[in-house]
Structures are given as structure tokens and as C-alpha cells.
């Protein structure tokens, strides 16, 4: 970014709520069902039907409000947002306008320079999702109404972000929080988390906002960062060349890596909001808020702090391990089995996350259960196997899903700690390598490592490395006399 300028970014994030049923009818929200099967007269927008509000959706919105330091409005009101589109059968979307469920919150994000920044949340409101249009047909557009009426919360930020990085961190944090709360699965690629951005640029020190554009269709975290950087650069170049930014909506094209203006002469946003006459004001009493707040799980920030104090982990480890609730849960299950907290962290951050990322599995479905990893660590710490052998056991656990002690027994990998067995292996190696022994005795102590390696090979890696070291040194020193 040209250092004379700064960007001003606000994000609108839609999160699909993990309720069983839709916002205003009892149809299932299940994803992937055959088209037009999760539908009824209410979500199809037939005349004369009445919406009935799903209590759980309101609870989820309140949970999100509490987790992001919002004020929970005792009274909120649904409103009609009017526009025509085929995937919106009623001709309006039921949303909230001037009285949303939650207002005036904030979250803190960590930035790469080590600083922390507080970013404001203007509001969180409830609304229904639209259906799905399929455009790739020759002559007509096909409409599937299954998604129509699925509950969403829209989280609107203040225009507090000054770079694509800040926006990325904000979005990551929102995703992390909805996942911790188990109110949304946070999958941008599948569209259960969606993000639109408002962007403008201005000279540093300027207090007036520049003309903004809106970018839509950024359906991955990577695309959000790319699209924002693209648009920031475009606006700066335009202004530097004496041009003017015009207010418009742009669609991000992930194949071409450009944002282009939305085509078609859509009427400028004129949604003519008015209070939804079919729904009375929603009252969220203090008692209800209290009840909901009792279900508030430990949030990422608090859990991270606890990981550093309770398990004495470095901040770096705690940060990674608490990045998702499932991963943090996995870690804590391991920590119940072994008290070697740092080894547990190393195994998870190293070997396990590597496989998880490579195979794109979720840690929840990982074939090595936390208990099994804990047992493996214990086998190392009680000298049953060496750390090196553990690395050989790991792939078998991964493939066969068996307990480590079973694999160790089956493959006969138990560490040799019996000193007579180690001694005889050492004698054999010393007899077979008279030259190296000679070199060692004449002061070339470097060959010691070679001899250790030979002994480990002789014992197929099963000898306790420390015992090998000690006994080998003793035997060699004995030869000096």
C-alpha cells in the first residue's frame, strides 16, 4: 500500500446458524438434501401463512452478542426488506432494521506486529437466508428453495479496519468465536460463513471518509485478503492518476483475481424497510439473557490464557492449540492422560496437524484418539520405547487405529533397558570395529557417535539410547587401562 494512504474497511459477515429448523417454520435446515424437499407453505411464501420465530435462533444471536461484548436489546423488531429475486419467493426478506437483537460490541484481534487492536461491532441482527438459483442452464434459471428461511445472523462491523490484514484477522476471530459457540460451522467455502466488505481509501491524517465500494463474492479467507488488497490498490492508483472512486458494488472473481462491477441495472438499494406486520416485537428479558450466558462456553482468548497457566505452554503453542474448539478439546483430552503437557503439544502441532492438514480431515474424526496419543507419550516417558521408536509406532496407530502398547507388543518394539543385552550388543560392535576403537582411544572421540549408531542398528533401534551411551563409554574407557 502507498504509505501516504490508509484504507478504511468495514465487514458484513453472515453466519448460518446451526439450528435444526428454519427461522420461521419447522422445515429442516439440513444441507445437501434433494432440491425443494425442505420446504413448506411458509418458506415457499404462499399467501395467508404466518411465520413463527425459532427460539433457538434468538438464543444463538444473543450468545454471539454476549461473546462479542454487545448490548442485548430487550426489545427488537423484525422488518421487511423488499426486493424481487426468484430465490426469494415472498418478494421480501424478513430481517431486522432499526432495532436489531445486539448492538455496540467489539472484539480484540492480534496483529502480526505483535500489537492488539480493538475493532467495533455495530450490530448483530437475525434474518432469513434466500434460496439458491442455478444459472448454468441454457434458457431458464432453476430455483431451489431449501435454503430459503434458514436462520442467519449478520454481524456488521464498524469501519475500524485499516488494512487487509486487520480485516483478515477480524474475520478469523469471528469464525473462531462462532465455532467455539457451536452456533455456525464457519465454513466459507460452503457458504455457511459469508463476508462482504465496504472499502474506501484516504490520505493518512484525513478524517473524512472517501467514497466506498462494496465487494461481494469472496468465498474463502484467502480471497478476502486478496480482494481487499486488490481494491485498496485500485482505488489508490485511481486517485493518484487524478480519477475519482465511484460508489458501486464489485464482484470478486477468484479465477482472474480481479473485482469487476456487478452487471445489470439493479435499482439502487431501495429496500423500503418497514416493520414486519406478521411478527410482534421480540422481547429478550434480563432473566433470559442470564440463562443464555450460563451456556456461554470458555472463549478462545480465555482458553488461551488458561493453556499458558494451567499447562505451562508457550503462548505460541497455546495460540495454535486454541485456534479451534475441537483442537483445544483434543489437546485437553490428551492432557488428561499424560502430564507431559509440552510433549502433547509438540505431537499435536507437529505430527498430528501435519496429517490433518494434508488429508483435510477434521481433528474430531482423527483416527488416533486423544487417549491413544497420551498413552504413546507415556510409553516414551516410562522408557518402554524411545522417542525414535515412537515415531515408527505413530504411522501404525494412524493406519490401524490400535492402541500404541498393542502395536509396540505386536511389532516387538519394546525398548531394551536390560543392560546385559545392551552390553552384549556393544561387545559385538567393538569386536567388529577394531579400527574405530583404536581411533577413539587415540583421541578421535568423534567416532563415538558412529559406534552408538552401530549399536542402535544392532538392536534395531530398541536399545535405550541413554543406556547405550553410558555403557559404551564405560567399555571404551575400560580399554584404556
Amino acid at each position, binding site marked *: 500500500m502507498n504509505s501516504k494512504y490508509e484504507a478504511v474497511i468495514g465487514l458484513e459477515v453472515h453466519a448460518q446458524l446451526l*439450528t435444526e429448523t428454519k427461522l420461521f417454520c419447522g*422445515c429442516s435446515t439440513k444441507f445437501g438434501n434433494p432440491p*425443494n424437499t425442505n420446504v413448506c407453505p411458509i418458506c415457499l411464501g404462499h399467501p395467508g401463512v404466518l411465520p413463527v420465530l425459532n*427460539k433457538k435462533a434468538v438464543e444463538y444471536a444473543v450468545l454471539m452478542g454476549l461473546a462479542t461484548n454487545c448490548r442485548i436489546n430487550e426489545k427488537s423488531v423484525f422488518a421487511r426488506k*423488499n426486493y424481487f429475486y426468484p430465490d426469494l419467493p415472498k418478494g421480501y426478506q424478513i430481517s431486522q432494521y432499526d432495532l436489531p437483537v445486539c448492538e455496540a460490541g467489539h472484539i480484540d484481534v492480534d496483529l502480526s506486529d505483535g500489537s492488539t487492536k480493538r475493532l467495533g461491532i455495530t450490530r448483530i441482527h437475525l434474518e432469513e437466508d434466500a434460496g439458491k438459483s442455478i444459472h448454468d442452464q441454457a434458457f431458464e434459471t432453476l430455483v431451489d428453495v431449501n435454503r430459503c428461511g434458514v436462520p442467519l445472523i449478520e454481524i456488521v462491523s464498524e469501519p475500524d479496519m485499516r488494512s487487509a490484514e486487520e480485516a483478515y484477522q477480524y474475520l478469523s476471530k469471528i469464525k473462531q468465536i462462532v465455532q467455539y459457540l457451536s452456533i455456525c460451522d464457519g465454513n466459507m467455502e460452503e457458504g455457511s460463513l459469508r463476508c462482504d466488505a465496504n472499502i474506501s481509501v484516504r490520505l493518512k491524517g484525513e478524517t473524512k471518509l472517501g467514497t466506498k465500494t462494496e465487494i461481494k463474492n469472496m468465498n474463502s479467507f484467502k480471497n478476502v485478503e486478496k480482494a481487499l488488497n486488490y481494491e485498496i490498490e485500485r482505488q489508490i492508483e485511481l486517485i493518484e492518476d487524478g480519477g475519482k472512486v465511484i460508489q458501486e458494488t464489485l464482484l470478486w472473481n477468484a479465477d482472474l483475481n480481479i473485482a469487476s462491477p456487478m452487471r445489470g441495472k439493479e435499482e439502487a438499494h431501495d429496500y423500503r424497510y418497514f416493520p414486519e406486520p406478521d411478527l410482534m416485537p421480540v422481547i429478550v428479558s434480563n432473566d433470559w439473557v442470564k440463562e443464555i450466558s450460563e451456556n456461554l462456553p470458555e472463549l478462545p482468548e480465555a482458553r488461551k490464557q488458561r493453556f499458558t497457566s494451567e499447562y505451562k505452554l508457550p503462548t505460541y503453542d497455546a495460540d495454535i492449540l486454541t485456534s479451534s474448539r475441537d483442537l483445544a478439546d483434543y489437546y485437553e483430552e490428551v492432557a488428561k492422560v499424560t502430564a507431559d503437557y509440552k510433549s502433547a503439544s509438540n505431537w499435536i502441532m507437529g505430527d498430528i496437524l501435519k496429517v490433518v492438514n494434508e488429508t483435510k480431515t477434521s481433528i474430531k474424526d482423527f483416527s488416533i484418539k486423544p487417549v491413544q496419543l497420551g498413552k504413546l507419550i507415556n510409553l516414551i516417558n516410562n522408557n518402554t520405547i524411545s522417542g525414535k521408536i515412537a515415531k515408527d509406532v505413530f504411522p501404525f496407530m494412524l493406519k490401524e487405529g490400535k492402541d500404541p502398547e498393542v502395536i509396540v507388543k505386536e511389532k516387538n518394539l519394546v525398548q531394551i533397558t536390560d543392560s546385559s543385552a545392551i552390553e552384549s550388543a556393544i561387545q559385538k560392535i567393538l569386536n567388529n570395529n577394531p579400527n574405530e576403537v583404536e581411533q577413539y582411544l587415540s583421541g578421535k572421540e568423534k567416532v563415538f557417535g558412529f559406534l552408538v549408531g552401530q549399536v542402535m542398528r544392532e538392536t534395531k533401534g530398541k536399545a535405550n539410547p541413554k543406556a547405550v551411551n553410558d555403557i559404551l563409554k564405560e567399555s571404551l574407557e575400560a580399554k584404556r587401562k
Partner: protein
Amino acid sequence: MPVSKKDVEHIAELAKLSFEESEIESFTGDLNEILSYVEKLNELNTDNVEPLSYPIPGQNVFRDDISTPSASTQEALKNAPDKDESFFKVPKVINMD
């Protein structure tokens, strides 16, 4: 006049309605008449009155998050002017190119 002919055309466009020129003229007159009648309410001082979203008092009732049977696809599509076995068909909305 608070409502212009252009306003009426804009509202008609939003509502996907088309009118004759003469109808637009007469609606412009009608809308202005209605608005000036309602205008009378502005004479009241409402400084200490909360905005009213609903004419009757009351609050929302909730539904538990328990699923109920949906309609069959055939039933859902029954009244559609155009359809195939599983989708509603509408005139093409976007050209994919």
C-alpha cells in the same frame, strides 16, 4: 407537491408494475392527496412518544427448534407456472459467460 411523477415511476418499477402515462398522472395526484391528508398527523407533538411499530400491544411467541414434516416436492411445485421434476423454472436471471 411532495410526490413527483418520477417518484411514482420509481415506485412502479420497484413493484414491477407498468402503467399508462395517464395512470401515472392520476396516481401522482392520488398519492399526494393521501399524503397531504395524513400530513395532518404532523401537527401533533410527538417528542415524548415512542415510535409505534404495531398498533396493538403484545409480544412475540416462540417456537421450539423441533422439525415438522415438510411438503413433498410435487406439492411444492404444484402451483408453479414452470418447473421440472425438482426445480422451479424462472426466466433467465443472469447470463453466464
